[in-house]
């Protein structure tokens, strides 16, 4: 009997030790805060300049103070771009999304369709009433069924970043057409040190953007304006794909490695002076502003060259969205309004050094935008730019096509598997049709 008792006592002792060891960490870090005692949660993606981050943070607390919130009731979280999709998905599934977040257009569309976002049409209307108004091209990205579910925070054009010093050196002008573009690239490139065109062809979003922009110039498109009829397997698209194939294989102005690039690939190629032309948002320009002013001086930002069907520039849109779960929707809307007050807004936009093109037209009158010749095409691009799903508008289906790299896979079928363009386009067409059909059912 006594012996069993010993065992039991020993067991108790061990259990105590185990539970102490287990709960130890709890007690040690008990002070750290719990989940959601906050009234206003803002998710911020890191900006290019620390100054912009600083300003944004100040504005959040400024607003909180004016709304009578204590600092402890505000959560300002900087959230990395890497892994953002996981984070937002988990937060929504747990019913605990942020109140306000900076969202890419495909996220605005998708979560608007799910009914997760607050209707902010009134805020957008207020912005449109500002003198000169805003660029309407940015509104398609936030509109869902005629209402706005996000406030466009900037227009994001995709100009061609071009090495004007190299053009000057070879006494060439910036090419007007794709044919000229190819010729120009062949003249100025000297592989492997310098390639003509750093076109992104990897399995990433940039590839869809680069490829579609070129296809448009040849009369191609992804979907009709009804956002239902997929037209990927068109002869126009095939013609455009053939041009890409020729640039890659015959003219060799695109480095072979672009098949493996990620979104940063064309940035790196340009920043390292190994590509004369790249199509990318102005993140490259903003980077140079901060880290390589010498190269920035040699850089021009131009519209995309024209094809047989003219030219059009791609734009996409970032927006502030407010999630509905928030018990204090007025705070969320107030914060967005505060950010978008032209004076506050202008400060942040300018602090990013050319990264964001302001959504308010009249801000272009300021000396900042007048001072540099490379900005002169921005207004035109912002006026006429098209979303990647052109002729369709941004929709949840278009977002899925972008996120699952359907179009990059098509181009890799041609360039890696040696499929004929029509065959690759046929496969791509089927996949996109499936995506659109499924999303329509939702």
């Amino acid at each position, binding site marked *: 009997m006594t012996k069993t008792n*010993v*065992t039991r006592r*020993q*067991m108790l*002792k*061990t259990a105590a*030790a*185990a539970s102490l*060891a*287990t709960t*130890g*960490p*709890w007690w*040690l*870090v008990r002070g*750290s*805060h*719990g*989940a*959601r005692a906050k009234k206003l*949660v803002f*998710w911020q*993606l*890191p*900006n*290019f300049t*620390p100054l912009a981050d600083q300003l944004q943070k100040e504005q959040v607390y400024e607003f909180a103070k004016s709304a009578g919130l204590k600092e402890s009731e505000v*959560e300002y*979280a*900087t*959230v*990395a*771009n*890497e*892994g953002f999709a*996981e*984070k937002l*998905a*988990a937060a929504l*599934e*747990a*019913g*605990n999304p942020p109140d306000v977040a900076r969202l890419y257009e495909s996220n605005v569309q998708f979560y608007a369709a799910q009914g997760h976002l607050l209707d902010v049409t009134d805020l957008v209307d207020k912005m449109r009433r500002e003198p000169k108004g805003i660029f309407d091209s940015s509104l398609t990205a936030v509109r869902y069924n005629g209402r706005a579910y996000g406030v466009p925070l900037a227009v994001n054009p995709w100009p061609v970043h071009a090495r004007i010093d190299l053009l000057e050196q070879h006494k060439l002008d910036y090419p007007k057409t794709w044919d000229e573009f190819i010729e120009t690239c062949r003249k100025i490139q000297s592989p492997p*040190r310098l390639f003509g065109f750093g076109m992104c062809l990897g399995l990433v979003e*940039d590839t869809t953007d680069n490829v579609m922009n070129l296809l448009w110039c040849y009369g191609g498109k992804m979907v009709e304006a009804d956002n239902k009829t997929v037209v990927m397997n068109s002869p126009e698209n095939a013609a455009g794909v053939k041009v890409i194939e020729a640039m890659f294989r015959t003219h060799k102005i695109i480095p072979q490695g672009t098949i493996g690039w*990620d*979104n*940063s690939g064309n*940035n*790196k190629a340009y*920043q*390292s*002076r*190994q590509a004369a032309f790249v199509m990318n*948002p102005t*993140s*490259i320009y903003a*980077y140079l502003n901060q*880290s*390589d002013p010498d190269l920035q001086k040699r850089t021009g930002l131009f519209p995309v060259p024209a094809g047989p069907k003219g030219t059009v520039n791609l734009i996409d849109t970032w927006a502030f969205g407010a999630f509905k779960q928030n018990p204090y929707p007025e705070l969320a809307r107030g914060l967005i309004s505060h950010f978008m007050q032209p004076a506050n807004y202008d400060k942040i936009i300018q602090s990013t050094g050319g990264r964001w093109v302001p959504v308010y037209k009249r801000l272009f009158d300021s000396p900042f935008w007048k001072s540099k010749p490379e900005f002169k095409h921005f207004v035109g691009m912002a006026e006429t730019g098209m979303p990647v799903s052109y002729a369709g508008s941004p929709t949840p289906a278009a977002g899925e096509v972008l996120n699952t790299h359907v179009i990059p896979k098509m181009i890799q079928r041609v360039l890696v598997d040696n499929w004929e363009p029509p065959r690759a386009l046929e496969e791509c067409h089927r996949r996109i049709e499936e995506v659109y059909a499924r999303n329509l059912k939702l």
Partner: protein
Amino acid sequence: MPRTTSGTRRLFRWIGNGLLLVMLVWTLVPFYWMIATSLKADREIYGFEATLVPHHPTLAAYVRLFQQTPFLKYVRNSTIIAVSTTAVSLVFGCLGAYALARLRFRGRRLIARGLVFTYLVPPSLLFIPLFAMMSALSLADTHQGLILAYLGFTVPFCTWLLMGYFRSVPLELEEAALVDGCTRLGALIRVVLPMSLPALAVVAFFSFTQAWNEFLYANVFVNSVEVRTITTGLTMFIIEDVFFWGPMMGAAFLSALPPLVVYLIFQRWVVKGLTLGAVKG
């Protein structure tokens, strides 16, 4: 005869030295590249001007790391989380492994096998339900929440590995201890554990590095600087589609140091475990 053996031994020693050299190069070159990158200015990082050795080494990346980011806070958080995870996993693992290795009961095989199956479920499938659970328990965005989540992948491993080692401890030694009046748990603590020090060192090191290096859960669960760990802090140097390689690699290099220190500490145990085992065995 012995002479030929020692001859072969010498031969093997030299082959060993050669292979060791090859492996050191293979292992260290990428690590070197990381350090070299952290000491370069951007002009040297990119392109054909990219130099194999930094020509103008600069500590700018580290200055940025310490002055403009809460790097030390990240280090603190990672330490709290990794150390706690290790401690808890060791306790849980030892108790569970002893039961599985030495005690007879229904469901033993099932549980032992179940341990392995837990790893089949990829974290990329688990993080959503787990996060929902943590939110419900108000543990999202806390150190505790992450520690708890990490136990999910350290405890099964610790238990499983220790189970294997405990079994290799001669039963007679334990019986002798029981003869001397030890209880089961006394035997575990006084006989089995000291003989399993190498295994304990391995699982401790494993738990520590797993918790230290984890990214997915840390990213999903944590919003605030007060809880953010190094791995997720590092990705703040990826802004949109631009990588700030210098500070990112600097931070990566620094973040690799603590696991190495921990390894150094535990490595002494491995040797001690060896000598203890030799004395007792």
